[in-house]
């Protein structure tokens, strides 16, 4: 089920109403069943895979917690990691690596016919795998006791609002919420409903409309890559992916709040970042903090000298890029961010340079464009296509439709920019969060009217569903 479809709205309404009529343990049982229904809606075979993976980690975590022998504990941790990453690797990367190996062998003159499997990527596999890995690592390192209830652990992994595209929940944050009774809180529920409205606005109005221009630019429907076409495609995709993923995250957080759960914030006005490091503190925060805590720091972080710090940054971002998808474009995208982080660290250190309001805005505009260029690799079908798109920046072409395309893009991106300016200056989590209730109601209703009038007319799957 996609969050912006009638079936999800109906599903959410039924679940929320029924959920609050049940006692604590039954709430968990009911939510687990609802989450499995939500997931199995795509394909019940994927559900079996997820349940299987959940069961394995549930028992391994208990064994880790019950064993004091460090060698056994380490072996169990390694076993869990191997199983989790093997499942992810098989479903997500098998064909990618087979194809890449084939190209490498062909490059050295060896003709190898490597198998290509017809594999469908199970939705959300990257997200729930990372959540399971975080849980096992936390239990192993003693940060968290192993859950003794499969119901609780299963619900922590599969709670439907975060199941398909995050935010990736930290075990220490969500698991205790699953384990304790939750009580109706009108403030939380009201905030949740407003988050859903803002999320739907971001997704249906901003992202789905910007997607039309981005798709047209990247598919060649606006003409061959040129300065105007590339800028249109780059800007349109920048706002599309931001609206899409932040909208998804808002709907997920809002849906969870309607049931008394709190999810971590996933976006904090990322296009106002004044450095790449700052960007990653604001963009997909649940992933960036996961990569920091479970990859960058275990690799040594910045504790083992300058050269190793750069290596760790690059490695972390390369793997972060690969996590997004089995394509060299994602690896390059991650590599570009890793390299930018390393260069930034080398040039700037920890001391802010060029301070002051004007410099801050100039840096923000510069970083926005660095990020936009990286989005070209993220969006393009291949590295060659991305390069062609970027080469277009040096060519000139004009069509009578271009002014309308820029105006169309402005109509849909400026509202999100203004919303972000408000959120950045107010520190609020959503628009009017600190305003009187009447204002917030008016905002929610205004969102509904704008969605009804301007929402793109056909549902587009959320970009992050493919990851």
């Amino acid at each position, binding site marked *: 089920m996609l969050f912006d479809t009638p079936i*999800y709205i109906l599903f959410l309404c039924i679940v929320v109403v029924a959920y609050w009529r049940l006692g604590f343990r039954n709430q968990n049982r009911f939510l687990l069943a609802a989450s499995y229904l939500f997931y199995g809606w795509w394909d019940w075979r994927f559900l079996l895979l997820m349940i299987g993976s959940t069961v394995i980690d549930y028992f391994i975590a208990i064994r880790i917690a019950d064993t004091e022998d460090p060698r056994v504990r380490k072996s169990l941790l390694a076993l869990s990691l191997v199983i989790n990453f093997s499942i992810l690797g098989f479903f997500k990367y098998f064909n990618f690596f087979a194809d890449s190996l084939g190209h490498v062998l062909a490059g050295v003159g060896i003709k190898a016919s490597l198998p290509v499997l017809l594999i469908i990527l199970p939705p959300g596999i990257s997200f729930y795998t990372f959540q399971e890995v975080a849980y096992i690592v936390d239990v192993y390192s003693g940060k968290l006791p192993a859950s003794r209830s499969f119901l609780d652990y299963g619900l922590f992994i599969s709670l439907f609002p975060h199941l398909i595209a995050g935010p990736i929940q930290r075990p220490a944050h969500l698991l205790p919420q699953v384990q304790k009774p939750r009580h109706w809180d*009108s403030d939380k529920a009201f905030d949740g409903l407003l988050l859903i409205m803002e999320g739907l606005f971001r997704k249906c109005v901003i992202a789905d409309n910007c997607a039309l221009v981005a798709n047209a630019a990247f598919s060649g429907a606006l003409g061959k890559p040129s300065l105007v076409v590339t800028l249109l495609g780059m800007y349109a995709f920048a706002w599309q992916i931001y609206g899409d993923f932040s909208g998804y995250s808002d709907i997920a957080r809002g849906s969870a709040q309607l049931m008394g759960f709190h999810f971590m914030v996933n976006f904090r006005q990322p296009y106002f970042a004044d450095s790449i490091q700052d960007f990653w503190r604001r963009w997909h925060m649940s992933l960036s903090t996961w990569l920091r805590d479970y990859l960058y720091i275990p690799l040594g972080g910045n504790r083992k000298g300058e050269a190793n710090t750069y290596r760790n940054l690059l490695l972390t971002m390369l793997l972060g890029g690969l996590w997004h998808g089995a394509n060299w474009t994602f690896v390059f995208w991650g590599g570009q961010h890793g390299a930018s982080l390393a260069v930034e660290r080398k040039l700037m250190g920890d001391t802010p340079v060029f301070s002051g309001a004007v410099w801050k805005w100039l840096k923000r505009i510069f970083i926005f464009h660095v990020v936009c260029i990286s989005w070209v690799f993220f969006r393009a079908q291949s590295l060659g296509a991305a390069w062609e798109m970027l080469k277009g920046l040096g060519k000139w072409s004009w069509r009578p*439709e271009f*002014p*309308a*395309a820029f105006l169309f893009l402005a*109509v849909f991106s400026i509202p999100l920019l203004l919303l972000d300016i408000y959120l950045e200056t107010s520190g609020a989590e959503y628009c009017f969060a600190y305003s009187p209730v*009447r204002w917030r*109601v008016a905002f929610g209703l205004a969102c509904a009217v704008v969605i*009804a009038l301007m929402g793109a007319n056909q549902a587009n799957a959320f970009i992050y569903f493919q990851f």
Partner: protein
Amino acid sequence: MQEKGGWNARTGFIVLVVGLALILLAFELGSPIVLDHLSRTEHRVEVELKAARALRPTTPDGRPTVLLAGNSLLLEGVQLDKLHDELASKYEVSRLGIEQTHFLDWYFGLRRLLQEGARPSAIVLALGTDQLASKFTLGEEFAHRQMSARDLPLAIQETNLDRTTASTYFFAHWSNWLADKGVIRQRVLIILVPNFRALAGRIADHGAHIHEQEVLVGMAKKRLPELAELSRTYGVKIVLMVPPALREDYSRDIQQVGAEVGVPVWVLSPPGEYPRSLYSDGYHLNQQGSSDYTSRLAEQIRQQNW
């Protein structure tokens, strides 16, 4: 938390939920009325649809009825007034034209029309060969206007829908707003963005363009028998008319497939016959082109023994 002299969150939650329900209801009830007034196209389609539903094999004075169905290729390629004038003594011709429609829109659209009791003597369906092969539909608008509720399982199968989209089609079948929201958005954007119509032509997603001979003929072999079956079931003659094209569209191959399965395929102007000067945009005929094409169509219908 209670605000000073204001609402608390509980009141806010309730007012918001009720407000959202009222907005939904207002759009649900209001969108057909507003669109009928705002959009001449929507008004025309509704009028034509109503007239098509009422068609019987012959008029009270005994003339066979012919329904011309199709998309903008029909709307711009055939001059209805001229056709009426040329055929008035022998046939009663009416039209049902919906822009941006492809085969599946019409296959299910005609099924629904016939299920609802429409019985023209013959239906002439005007589609380009690539539109015959296309998997594209108008989405929610299609589900509301052209697909009947009982055809939903068949539509899911034919269009290979996932469960989420299938459920959206189910809701759209019953919901005015879900069906109309695309047109509403278009109207708003026409006001907000000058030259939006030209831009929309470039950025709208009409599915991949199909031009491979093998695919076109293969799809014709699959789809023309479906039209033949529809024709047999309801006792209505169905003809596929391929409008003129500047480039090779393999309409002659499709004509052969039609002959094999019992669906006449009319190619009144072979691909490339009409020069570019008879087209307005390389795809749709202009005034001069449509005048000539209408004469040919009138002659073709006149020759039938319907």
